[in-house]
């Protein structure tokens, strides 16, 4: 079997460019759908990295916060503090008063002082007992024991459901996961749908290209052009659409990284978004490769149906 030489590669390229000009609208359609599906894939990959970062940082902070009702007596608080100190796996405890809690909140909101202004001098934040653990594995056990303590149940911020007054990393992580799982499912469904649409568009574009060139194809077959030579321009066309679509999505992702991410970071300072540039490089490469797979597969499927060689 003959190998396709450099000059025929140039021929494929110029022919695929002609096909591009011939069916501009359908070509744009396939490029845009590839672009959108790759962009969504890329955004979700970045989102996944952010969630991973959050999960890691939350798990680093192995502490339990027990919120205490405003009207709790100092005796009860002392009793609960003593009880918690005596538990296994507890390293230290620290009591945060309502005023301190407000102060902490104000400090974390320096970039959005208007939120603090809206409090109108009120203090909605409860006092809390912060429990530092010596062993991260013990979080669930210690939390369970605090929850079952009768005195705590009495002074808990939410007496109806004492467990609601206990905040610890695992819970945040779990909640994060339920939310991200929903988002992920929606994202995957969206990507599958978009890839399907991209296939339909590529299929149609390549079909039109084949139709437009059917006379040339018939002659090529008669004079003995090799099958690869006949297929080349169409594969090239699919690949070209894919590369343009992937390039667009990479450009948009890079703009998002440079412009949007710093803004998100400054408005949500507690969100650890610092993603290394190398991760972006890998994601861009993945986008390019998956775009090429979509483009080549799409045109290969179209050729199977419409191009007899």
């Amino acid at each position, binding site marked *: 079997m*003959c190998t396709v030489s450099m000059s025929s590669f140039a021929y494929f390229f110029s022919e695929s460019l002609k096909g591009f000009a011939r069916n501009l609208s359908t070509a744009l359609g396939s490029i845009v759908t590839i672009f959108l599906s790759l962009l969504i894939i890329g955004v979700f990959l970045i989102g996944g990295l952010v969630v991973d970062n959050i999960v890691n940082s939350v798990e680093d902070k192995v502490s339990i916060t027990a919120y205490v009702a405003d009207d709790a007596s100092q005796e009860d608080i002392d009793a609960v503090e003593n009880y918690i100190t005596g538990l296994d796996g507890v390293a230290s405890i620290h009591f945060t008063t309502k005023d301190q809690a407000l102060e902490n909140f104000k400090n974390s909101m320096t970039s959005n002082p208007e939120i603090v202004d809206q409090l109108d001098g009120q203090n909605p934040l409860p006092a809390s007992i912060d429990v530092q653990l010596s062993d991260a594995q013990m979080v669930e056990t210690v939390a369970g024991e605090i929850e079952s303590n009768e005195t705590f149940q009495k002074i808990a911020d939410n007496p109806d459901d004492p467990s609601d007054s206990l905040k610890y990393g695992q819970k945040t992580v779990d909640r994060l996961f339920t939310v991200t799982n929903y988002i992920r499912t929606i994202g995957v469904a969206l990507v599958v749908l978009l890839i399907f649409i991209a296939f339909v568009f590529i299929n149609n574009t390549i079909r039109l290209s084949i139709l437009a060139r059917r006379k040339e194809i018939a002659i090529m*077959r*008669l004079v*003995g*052009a*090799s099958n690869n*030579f006949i297929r080349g321009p169409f594969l090239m066309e699919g690949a070209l659409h894919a590369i343009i679509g992937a390039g667009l999505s990479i450009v948009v992702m890079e703009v998002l990284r440079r412009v949007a991410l710093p803004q998100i970071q400054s408005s949500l300072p507690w969100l650890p978004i610092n993603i290394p540039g190398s991760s972006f490089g890998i994601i861009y490469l993945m986008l390019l490769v998956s775009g090429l797979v979509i483009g080549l597969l799409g045109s290969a499927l179209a050729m199977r149906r419409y191009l007899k060689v």
Partner: protein
Amino acid sequence: MTNANNQGMPAHASHSAGAKAPARPNLTAQLSAQLPDLDLDTVAQPSGTPVITFDHVTKVYPAQPSKPALYDISLQVFAGEFVFLVGHSGSGKTTLTRMIIREIKPTEGHIYIADEDLSTMRNWRVPYLRRNIGTVFQDFKLLPNKTVFENVAFALEVIGKSRHVIRTQVPEVLRLVGLQDKLDKYPDQLSGGEQQRVSIARAIVNRPPLLVCDEPTGNLDPQTSRGIMDLLERINRTGTTVLVATHDREMVDNMRRRVIALDKGRLTRDQDRGVYGFDV
């Protein structure tokens, strides 16, 4: 391109093979070794190795299972021959020519082109078979957006010939068909006869040993047809085997060449068989 494709295909085939060609090509070599050289003088030209061999070929199209397009056709065409394939519309001429370039496969039987069995030929080899067979059709099949030169050059471009080869071979072949002054014309600026000359030039520009024409004069008036036939005869004289399917019996009889007649898919007449010792 492979060696197998070349065997027996060169236009100036060796004249060592005997008069009685065997039905099976693999016997050719044995037989030609056995036959004495003195045969050469007694056998009328052309002789040599079979370029086309049909071995009990039947073609049934799925649309008409009870009416075979070709039924039990056996024939041989030798290197350097000029053969007319005649018959009414629907007699199977086009089916036969399309089988030679393996556009379609026989339902039964075998077709050999220069020792190669087309029914066992791998699909990817088919283009290399077609590089050795020039084809000319009634509807010319020229690209309207290319000039005469570009149309002929296209046939060389798509099989990967270098620009140098194209620049020397295309003007040469266009001179042969008498269109040296119309290189830059577009097909719709030419007459029907001139367009058919372009398509013949395209068919022979790669110097194939075999030229297959399906109704080459079907669209042309008698005078122009005569010119096309003269051109085909001239190409045949350079050693190219030429097979012309046509329903123009008068022309065929005037030219006094070998004639194979098909009627409703059956081979009914092979006028020159006595001369060639055609034993089918």
